[in-house]
């Protein structure tokens, strides 16, 4: 199998072959964040959850918000990569690997948030021994496990040909690459097998991804609490997850495009298409949010209205309106026209959305708990340094996992880019020709 050895490809191997000073600076910075998080958790583990700002009645705060947020980000990856693959969108080729890695890494962080939130983490095995499937938390455990396995598989399978390239090209880590490459030599039989397996996983991973965030939303919507017990939660959370996921993907792409000088591969057109997707998701998110609040407002149930006004004008108004600004106003302004300054606009929109979506999760979790139905003594929830530290550490840990991945495996799928060059153009041409008017048997 003759390969066109492209000099530009060297840049894709560069992070694996060389390690610059920038890497060490990045690791140092992330380590500081992770250390803060580790200390925060150590304090919490020894003393108890009292070191957080949680209290009666707000028993859930930052950790559960982070849980929903990180699991939401995970939808970027596999969902985008799977949908783009199934719809044969050629522009997906440099993006799929980055997206898939996000999903795999962030699921660990997301699931970890729940473990951090437990009052008795030493008893986490109780979920295995004594789990009850009537509880939405068990649906979470099953669904997230399925998603993790599906994502890891869906990351690993398309990596096999790239690992084979590394096995043959590099001197270091020969054993690792040889084992993981499964003896890939690019024969037609192997390509057929892999193609079929990837297609099956792409189809399978989409309903699993949808189920994951639906099930996360069910943790809230299966209770009787006002503003939680809403039928819209399933689709609302999934839309929000895809929304925040694309934003996370874009930010990651821009960071690594700069750090690893991938401008040859990640072009403005890729960001433009992702930006358009992001715009659609912003509008969709707004529609769901609008429907949700209009329904609550129109029905004017007293308990719901207590929470409604708390968000609109009461103690939570800064968070609520910042959320609307970040999730709707700023993205629309940035993404409406992407011809000029594409990457800059898309970066601002994505950062804004990441903040906005975190606030959205916060706005869902905390206000409902803050206003119980009965006249219970209340108080505002204020997070402590422990919760900030845990959040910072979580971001840091995710970033570190991601960074380490890029040191071992190419962050852009090399064989898929080659495939795009060799067969992609011809396939697309044939496809377009088949759309044009002609005989039913396909011969134009």
């Amino acid at each position: 199998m003759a390969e066109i050895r492209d000099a530009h490809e060297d840049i894709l191997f560069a992070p694996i072959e060389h390690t610059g000073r920038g890497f060490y600076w990045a690791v140092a910075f992330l380590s500081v964040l992770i250390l803060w998080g580790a200390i925060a958790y150590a304090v919490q583990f020894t003393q108890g959850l009292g070191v957080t700002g949680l209290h009666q009645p707000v028993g859930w705060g930052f950790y559960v918000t982070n849980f929903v947020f990180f699991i939401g980000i995970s939808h970027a990856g596999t969902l985008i990569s799977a949908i783009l693959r199934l719809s044969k969108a050629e522009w997906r080729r440099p993006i799929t690997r980055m997206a898939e890695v996000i999903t795999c890494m962030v699921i660990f962080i997301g699931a970890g948030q729940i473990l951090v939130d437990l009052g008795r983490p030493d008893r986490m095995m109780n979920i295995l021994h004594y789990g009850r499937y009537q509880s939405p938390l068990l649906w979470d455990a099953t669904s997230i496990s399925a998603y993790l396995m599906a994502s890891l598989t869906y990351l690993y399978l398309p990596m096999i040909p790239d690992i084979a390239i590394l096995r043959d090209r590099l001197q270091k880590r020969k054993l690792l690459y040889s084992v993981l490459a499964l003896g890939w030599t690019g024969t037609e039989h192997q390509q057929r097998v892999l193609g079929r397996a990837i297609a099956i996983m792409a189809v399978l991973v989409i309903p699993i991804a949808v189920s994951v965030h639906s099930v996360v939303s069910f943790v809230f919507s299966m209770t009787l609490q006002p503003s939680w017990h809403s039928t819209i939660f399933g689709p609302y959370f999934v839309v929000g997850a895809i929304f925040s996921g694309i934003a996370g993907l874009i930010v990651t792409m821009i960071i690594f495009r700069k750090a690893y000088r991938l401008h040859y591969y990640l072009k403005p057109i890729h960001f433009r298409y992702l930006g358009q997707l992001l715009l659609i998701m912003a509008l969709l998110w707004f529609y769901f949010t609008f429907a949700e609040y209009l329904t609550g407002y129109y029905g004017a149930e007293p308990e719901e209205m207590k929470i409604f006004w708390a968000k609109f004008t009461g103690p939570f108004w800064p968070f609520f309106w910042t959320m609307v600004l970040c999730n709707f106003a700023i993205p629309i302004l940035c993404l409406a026209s992407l011809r000029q300054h594409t990457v800059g606009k898309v970066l601002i929109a994505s950062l804004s959305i990441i903040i906005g979506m975190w606030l959205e999760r916060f706005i869902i979790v905390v206000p409902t708990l803050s206003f119980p139905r009965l006249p219970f003594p209340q108080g505002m929830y204020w997070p402590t340094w422990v919760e900030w530290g845990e959040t910072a550490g979580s971001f840091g840990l995710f970033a570190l996992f991601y960074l380490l991945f890029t040191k071992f495996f190419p962050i852009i799928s090399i064989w898929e880019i080659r495939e795009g060059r060799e067969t992609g153009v011809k396939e697309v041409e044939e496809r377009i020709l088949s759309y044009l008017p002609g005989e039913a048997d396909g011969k134009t």
Partner: protein
Amino acid sequence: MALWGMVIDLDRCTGCQACVMACKAENNVPAVGANEAKRGRVISWMQVLTETDEEHHASKTRFIPRPCLQCDDPPCTKVCPVYATYRNPEGIVAQIYARCIGCRFCMAACPYNAKYFNWYSYQKEAPGQNPDVSVREKGVVEKCTFCHHRLQKARERALAERREFDPAEYVPACAEACPAKAIVFGDLSDPASEVAQLARSPRAFKLLEELGTKPKVIYLTEGEGGG
């Protein structure tokens, strides 16, 4: 099979909170301290909620002693991931401290906020506590159990004395302590019992009944001129 329930007469309740203190003493409920209380972490299995009338808040305050309502369709047991809370055949919603992983889902699900969490290890085992009730460590949820240990003791005493167990022997601490006799406790499934008769009173109502939790703590609204 008995179905233990409680009737609280709001017309008799003076808001003195003797029930609260009796419950805390009986069940080794920790005093969390002033700092923790300021942060909103008081644990009070029996808690007196005050509801002021919106129009006449100067003159009309209602005191609602709220234990765990021991629902017959408990929202808390549905969501527990590890069988740490469940409704036993006699209608008491039990809490298993040794199983609880502290996820606080039951706390988020309870519409009555009847569940409390040990944010720290508020106390250790020490002399002066009630030896019949376990002392809870940090990280677990706890709540009113209708003084279930008193039921067990009464049953065992009857067994030891080779006689039938009389439901009247089983009285939770709050019902025993109330100076106004506002709390009546007994077997709701026995139509002749006082608690069952009061539950059928025209003054009877249930908190948040529309949610379908089927609570077994029934309140009697204030009489003429009030409530």
